[in-house]
């Protein structure tokens, strides 16, 4: 079974960074791919909320021949402060890979590209939630160094709980809190 799947995979996928000019061309496919894994679809505004503000943190995997959407990751990056000193926090909001192309490291490549883009933008940390039963997703992130920081009871509509996963990109003392540097971060 694995072999036949392997055969389907194009020799080299095309990974591209999203930009607003691509909305018409790719947004419908992004929505279609992500909606497959959701019990309830997000409205167009949810996609625009992320893609309009953080398009450069969205990456797509395409079949080079057919231009078919095979995978996508959608993120954001903004200052965060709740119970602790402020950080510039990246958040991986959506990640999807077409089911027949899974287990080939496409999701990992997408996530790495997103994290790389966050690192370039001086992010302090990256967080996300994943369903407790989604072992492949948990493994993917844990192989990138994420730790489970807390468990969230009945987080999803289906009644399943989630784990919050956290990856620090810097030592706590070096975290800046916002894009302009952390001079007045703590007070």
């Amino acid at each position, binding site marked *: 079974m694995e072999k036949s799947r392997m055969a389907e995979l194009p020799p080299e996928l095309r990974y591209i960074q999203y930009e607003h000019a691509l909305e018409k061309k790719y947004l419908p496919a992004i929505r279609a791919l992500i909606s497959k894994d959701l019990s*309830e679809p997000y409205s167009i505004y949810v996609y625009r909320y992320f893609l309009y503000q953080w398009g450069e943190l969205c990456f797509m995997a395409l079949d080079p021949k057919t231009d078919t959407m095979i995978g996508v990751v959608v993120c954001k990056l903004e200052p965060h402060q709740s119970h602790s000193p402020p950080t510039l926090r990246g958040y991986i909001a959506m990640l999807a890979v077409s089911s027949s192309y899974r287990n080939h490291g496409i999701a990992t490549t997408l996530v790495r590209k997103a994290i790389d883009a966050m690192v370039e933008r001086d992010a302090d940390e990256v967080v996300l939630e994943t369903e407790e039963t989604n072992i492949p997703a948990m493994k993917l992130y844990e192989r990138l160094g994420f730790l489970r920081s807390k468990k969230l009871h009945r987080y999803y509509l289906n009644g399943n*709980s989630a784990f919050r996963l956290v990856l620090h990109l810097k030592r706590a003392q070096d975290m800046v809190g916002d894009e302009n540097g952390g001079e007045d971060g703590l007070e």
Partner: protein
Amino acid sequence: MESNGMPAIAQQVGGLNINDGPPKPGPFVAYELEPPPPPKINNKNLITMDVTEQFTSAAQKLELGELVKDPHFTLFESVGALEIMDSKMDSGHLEEGETMQDDYDFSKALLPEEIIGIIDQLLCHEMAWHMGYPLSQTIFTSLYIDRLLMPTPTSLEETYFDRSDSRLQKEPLTLQILRAYCLGLIKTCWFVNSRVRSEHFYEEEDFVTHTFNRSLLDRVGHEAILQLLDETVELLSGSDDIPREIKDALFSRLLFRARFLRIVEVAASRTAPGVKEMWTELQSSLPQIISSTNLGKPVPDSFSVKVQRKLASTVPPRPIVIVSQEGAFAHLERLCRDAAAALDVFEYYDSHSLFTFVSLFQARKPQPSVYVRTLLQHYLFGDMIILGTMSIRQVLDEDIANFVLPASKLLDRNNDEVEVPTDPRFIAAEKMEIFRSRAAGTYLDILRTMCQNRCRIRRTLCHTIVDWDNLQLDAEDLDQQLREFTQEEPILDRNISNEPIYAFPLSSWAYFYKLRQMEWIVQMGFELELYQPDELAAMYWYVQYLSRTRLRHLERIRTFVTRSTSTSASRLKDIGTAGGLECANAQAYNNLSTLEASANSAFADALSCLYTVLDRLGLLSKLPQPYSDDHMRYEVRMKPFLGIGLPELVPFPELTQLVTQSNENTLDILEFAAESTAAAKRALEGLAKLNAEQGFCRGSHGSWVVEVKNALKACILANITIVTVRRAVEAAGDEGKVKLKAEIPGPSARYHDWWIVPKVVPVP
């Protein structure tokens, strides 16, 4: 909201409270017939004008495809936005041929078997609601329930299912049974919902109290419903055209509903007698229902997903939640059992036993349901009177007296009577009151937190740990000031310190609870499966570090308590006095906590060493870290403790050294681990032998012993595992490969949630 988690937002949006106040039939009648009228603007300060032209001209200035985003348009708004004509978002969108509402004939006669079928399905829905699903996807999907609730009835007269002319004739018995049952069901839900709502819980996460603008029979008294249930029972017993078996099944269901309704009406009372027996009776009535479920004939078309379109909700109909009959009855049985057990909390002995009771009760598996947990909260804290009889001060003072300040004049109530502001007793009373006002919340928060779901318990403990740190600092100041009143003689011992040493009783008390809470935070991480295999050595090292710190602290407290007791011994010749009892309790509690901390530290030490060895042998999966390193991961893990002053966070390089023990030989580490399990075993056996008084678990001794014995089993298993590893290491010699495989067991494969003993098996 934390980190703007998408699913959490989606849930909140789903539960958006459009209008859940008192029912206003007007707009909803309009909704069912025609679109609502435009709003009436009566305010004369409001001037309306047509902006179409401005809007069009502004829009024309935009490039094609250009987006405009209001800075206040947040993720929350975007998730809440709907796309009209998308059937998954637009609740009014109909597929071709689909009708808005169901066309159900309520005058249709039902077989008695069908009544059983509907009732049993409703029970499944009721339990699904108790499990945390919304009414809209459970009970409210019943067309009969919908019929009862819309329009909102004000009396039983308005609850007939059949509203055609034929209803002037007598209601068939089958429908009366169903109606009485449904009324009882909804009223039961009303009581449950009111209870949950008035306590601390997490909407959506724990329970959905949202009623979608439906009234759960607010305006129909429960007595009238009970009376109808009784009358229906009587009517049923008089009827002879229903087969005996079916009749009995219907009986048991009506009686069950009346019982359940009677209980939820009194369950929150802290004085009503016989509530425990009522829960037990309800539980024992279940087998009769369970054994007759096979007689029921389902009526699937009397449930519809479409009812949700009539509810005040922003989201389109979601699927009906399916809970199996076995699942529903199991939940209900547990609910009865747990609710009966929760009442034991009223048998109060001492504050320490109360904490043990609540902690063990909440650790039951599965955890007691939300309704039972909110009942317990109410018993504990209702009207800020602890268990309905004690002031917060009483419990707090007792806790302090039975641990750090036995027979102390600081806690003497007579100090409060002194009215002369210069009198030292007046000043002491004032300072103690300052302490109480700061400590009470933090102290009771432990109990309150324990009433939440397991995930929330740990999260909340992480957030509130800093309160204990602050309280300890505040208390140090007060301790110093209070010395003027106590005239405390310090310990002068050059061997320990050049400075005089004082007791610092209040801050000692706070430090103790802070240490306990820190231990719980780390230990619950094991339970909730937060740690990866390569973290376990360090996390168990931290448990032993905290327990060992607690041991030293207990020793310090013991020194001062013994000292003050011996100096006041002449006053307390008679052990029967209150002061004498406090002294005995303080000693006993210190003994218990010492034994328990010894067990914890020795066991944790053993496991930490074992995991260090497994790590060294390459038997634990070590994940790559392309973006971070162990130091950064340590900071993620220890985040709750980063702001804590005492005990200091162990710096990462030091921790690494202490955990990896790189200078130690593997066999020596294993030897030490084996000795530690032996020490832990002795301590746990000691604990298991304590009686309820010595264990400060009065009211929950049975479950306390089970808990200790589970830890003991885990400890024995750990010892066997260590021996297995040692033999394999010895067999491999210096250069050879150790022929072992290690697995980390999941929660169901452990003797104790907090003690993860690796499963080590030989490989060829």
